[in-house]
């Protein structure tokens, strides 16, 4: 199914790839109409340095099978015995980042029930339902740290006291630390869902009051011309 969609897209892309340059080329011929001649030649003269995706890297298949993922050696026979993520993910709720699986939903819907003990499948996790709100100075919604999904997966000792002192608002946290792999970033951006444009609101989940405005910077407050 997804293969045929891929093929269709490939055909569509190649059609477009065929038609666009075709129009561009024929534009320089006298046969074509004046309005095309007016707009198209510019396209051909755009500098190569000014193309799209200079820094944007897109991933074509985020859940590639082991033998196509670029880190497994295809010459190794074991590689071909490994499971492809897509096979295991069948039927699990999806997201647009990380493993592209909503692991929290997968647990809560009962579609997944990983063991909390190495051997005994009956051991229940010690879940604590305590939300910690962290007001954010910036215009983004405030952060709500929910203990519930964390204690469903982890043990208190995974975070306390090494990563976070267990006391409300005593820990200094900011976004650059997270992006560099500290604080929440010890897990988020490595194994748990990563911070990307599409996931900001998972953590920044408490909208600001309607009358909230960002504080003015000193340079603006003191600006005599304001």
């Amino acid at each position, binding site marked *: 199914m997804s293969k045929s969609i891929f093929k269709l897209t*490939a055909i569509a*892309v*190649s059609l477009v*790839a*065929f*038609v666009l*340059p*075709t129009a561009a*080329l*024929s534009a320089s*011929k006298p*046969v074509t109409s004046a309005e095309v001649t007016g707009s198209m030649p510019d396209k051909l003269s755009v500098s190569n340095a000014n193309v799209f995706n200079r820094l944007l890297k*897109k*991933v*074509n298949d*985020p859940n*590639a099978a*082991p033998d196509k*993922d*670029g*880190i*497994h*050696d295809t010459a*190794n026979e*074991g*590689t071909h015995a*490994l*499971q492809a*993520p897509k096979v*295991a993910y069948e039927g699990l709720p999806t997201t647009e980042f*990380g*493993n*592209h699986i909503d*692991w929290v939903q997968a647990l809560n819907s009962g579609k*997944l029930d*990983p*063991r*909390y003990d*190495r*051997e005994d499948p009956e051991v229940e*996790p010690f879940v604590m339902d305590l939300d910690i709100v962290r007001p954010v100075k910036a215009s983004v919604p405030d952060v709500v740290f929910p203990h519930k999904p964390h204690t*469903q*997966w*982890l*043990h208190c000792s*995974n975070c306390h006291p090494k990563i976070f002192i267990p006391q409300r608002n005593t820990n200094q946290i*900011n*976004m*650059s*630390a997270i*992006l*560099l*792999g*500290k*604080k929440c970033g*010890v897990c988020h*951006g*490595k*194994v748990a869902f*990563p911070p990307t444009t599409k996931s900001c609101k998972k953590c920044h989940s408490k909208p600001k009051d309607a009358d909230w405005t960002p504080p003015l910077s000193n340079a603006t407050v003191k600006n005599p011309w304001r």
Partner: protein
Amino acid sequence: MKALTEHSSVWKMALFGLLVWVGVLSAPQQAQAEYADVVINNYADAAGMRPVVFPHWYHRIRFRCKVCHADLGFKFKAGGNKITMAKIIDGKFCGACHNGEISWSVENCGMCHSGIPGTPTHISGSTVQRLVAPAYKELDKKAQ
């Protein structure tokens, strides 16, 4: 004359379209290992073994983080646990499960040692690696 020009332009169009098509199809495809796959290569390469690839996604379907990172004592650091085969056959780290009881046994070398030789220790798809430029370090100091 007009027919001839049109004819040759058709050929040019076809050639150009074909070139673009070839270009699109042969453009380097961004290969991406599954998010959170850990390559462990402190010693493997030096000992002539392929690096180890540990799939987080596969294990977290079966076990919660707590089993490995609290009970079995895996530290949150790729390559930070100094795992060796001696420890594994003593039942530590991977050996706590890959013992022929909870999961298949250690003689299946190629299941774990499956990485491309020379791949350094790292975790795949991490935010730190994907940043276009390093995040602002000054701010980070305050949050240590």
